[in-house]
């Protein structure tokens, strides 16, 4: 089903932020903001929740920590204890100090890569994905607010455009997207 979308373009991040604040106060739902760099403070205005990727990083790190511990206990204590000058080689705890560097490295390895992969998958930013920004200038110096008519059935498109025009935008565009 085709859907009508309004794109309002700004040339300053602060003007966009003030405009978005006014629109949201009037009850307009802003579905997306496209910008060349992060606009600090825009997320709570347009109702974007903070990402939970940090929690995921912690869980991946924990997985790495466990895997490294289990692995080294198996390799060095259970499967093939090495005789190094007759030192105790039958307990993990007695040998743990030597395993700390790799445990640490492996924890960081899993946390960093796990989080990075999750980030790319959640964003759907992967090799070969098509660009979805409405205007090529939004990766340079322009900022765009996207408003979907279906999400704003309280207003007609003319009313929305009228409100947008008061916010200091530089270009207004209507498109139909699938």
């Amino acid at each position: 089903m085709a859907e009508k979308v309004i794109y309002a373009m700004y040339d300053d991040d602060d003007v966009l932020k003030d405009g978005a604040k006014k629109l949201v106060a009037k009850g307009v739902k802003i579905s997306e903001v496209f910008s060349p760099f992060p606009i600090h403070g825009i997320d709570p205005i347009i109702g974007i929740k903070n990402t939970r990727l940090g929690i995921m990083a912690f869980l991946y790190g924990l997985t790495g920590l466990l895997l490294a511990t289990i692995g080294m206990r198996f390799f060095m204590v259970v499967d093939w204890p090495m005789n190094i000058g007759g030192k105790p080689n039958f307990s993990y705890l007695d040998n743990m100090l030597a395993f700390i560097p790799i445990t640490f490295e492996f924890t960081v390895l899993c946390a960093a890569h796990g989080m990075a992969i999750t980030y790319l998958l959640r964003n759907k930013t992967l090799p070969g994905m098509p660009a979805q920004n409405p205007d090529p200038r939004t990766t340079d110096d322009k900022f765009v607010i996207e408003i979907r008519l279906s999400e704003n059935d309280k207003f007609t498109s003319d009313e929305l455009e009228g409100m947008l025009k008061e916010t200091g935008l530089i270009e207004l565009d209507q498109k139909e997207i699938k």
Partner: protein
Amino acid sequence: MHKEAAIREPLILGHKTYHDITEDVCRPIEDKAPRMWYILFGIALIIGLYGVGCILYLLGTGIGVWGLNKTIGWAWDITNFVWWVGIGHAGTLISAVLLLFRQKWRMAINRSAEAMTIFAVFMAGLFPLIHMGRLWVGYWTLPLPNQFGSLWVNFNSPLLWDVFAISTYLSVSLVFWYIGLIPDFATIRDRAKKPVAKKMYSILSFGWSGRAKHWNRFELVSLVLAGLATPLVFSVHSIVSFDFATSVIPGWHTTIFPPYFVAGAVFSGFAMVQTLMLIMRKAMGLEAYIHTKHVEYMNIVIMVTGSIVGTAYITELFISWYSGVEYESYAFINRATGPYWWAYWSMMTCNVISPQLMWFRKLRRSLLFTFIISIVVNIGMWFERYVIIVTSIHRDYIPGAWSMHYPSHIDLGVYVGTIGLFFVFFLLFARYFPVLALNEVKTILKSSGESYKNAPDHHDHSEESHSNH
């Protein structure tokens, strides 16, 4: 928006707009490469290929072609390895540690410093691999099930810790660097006119569109990666130092090694960043973004870490006497007065004296002086590793086994070759990649850009700031 004191020097000079930043960074990529680029690339490529030839000869013949002998089993190979890993410390320090400390000046240099880091770690990783002689069994360093028993790798050995440390450091730095590159590739993609370039940059940019939610995730991922990479920076060179510190060789088994190696690594890494950055800013017209203030900040880091290194040298010397262990004392007296005295005193001059000159404001703000010192520091840091490694082992316990190390032309070829390959990678990077984190730089334009800082609308104290200047 975050306000900044008016007396703080602006980080972006001139009257730049967001679009100017895009233009300034993307133009060198879109224009034809200057003739100088081809000349430098050609020279680097020839040297690099010569190095590859030497490596192939080494692999085909055996590591006997190096100047090693029964007494000196480690020399240039490990010296070069530690030297390159050390150089590879600045990038992640700049992008991770300085991100955690919210240092805005990092944004102008982090991209190229990280690229430098990654290429330096590539070069470093090459040395242990070719030192195996049989490169094709390199996978034996990994704990893989095998038909020997199954006999595992020795998790008690610092050499194995190093395998994990270097590969984790390399891959995490690479991911950190690439995640920052994605939005900048998108900028180039959206500007590209030639179809091939458009296609390439759209693959590289992973379809980045700059949605608000994506930026929210981007900022958190950068922060968490910085938090993860920070202890990594310190752990990698600590573990490299364990390769020596856990042995029982006088001159090597020193508890001071980990902090001393980390400081030395940051010291040499920043020197390499200075060398590259001073040329790059000029060649690519980025003087407005990387200027005297950035150079001064980096020189202060060089001064501080250089002083830590100097203190460590003197502490080591003192402890070798104070310990009362005659082998230990001899190792150090031999370093300073033995047949390798020239290496020791080159190291002392380059690493202890030269950073102290940075106390003078005039000198640390002089670009020419900085350039010279940055090269002197890296020569000094190479000698440091050579002194630690070779002078500690060349006089064995039995005088009959005493020996000297003379590098062969293959030693030299492999070392110079890695410098060539490093520059091949760096020049390709400078040609095709955004050398400045251009979208991140835009976030500091309003708080640290010259035209915004001094504009009355944006600043309460603009009057005072004008009279101060």
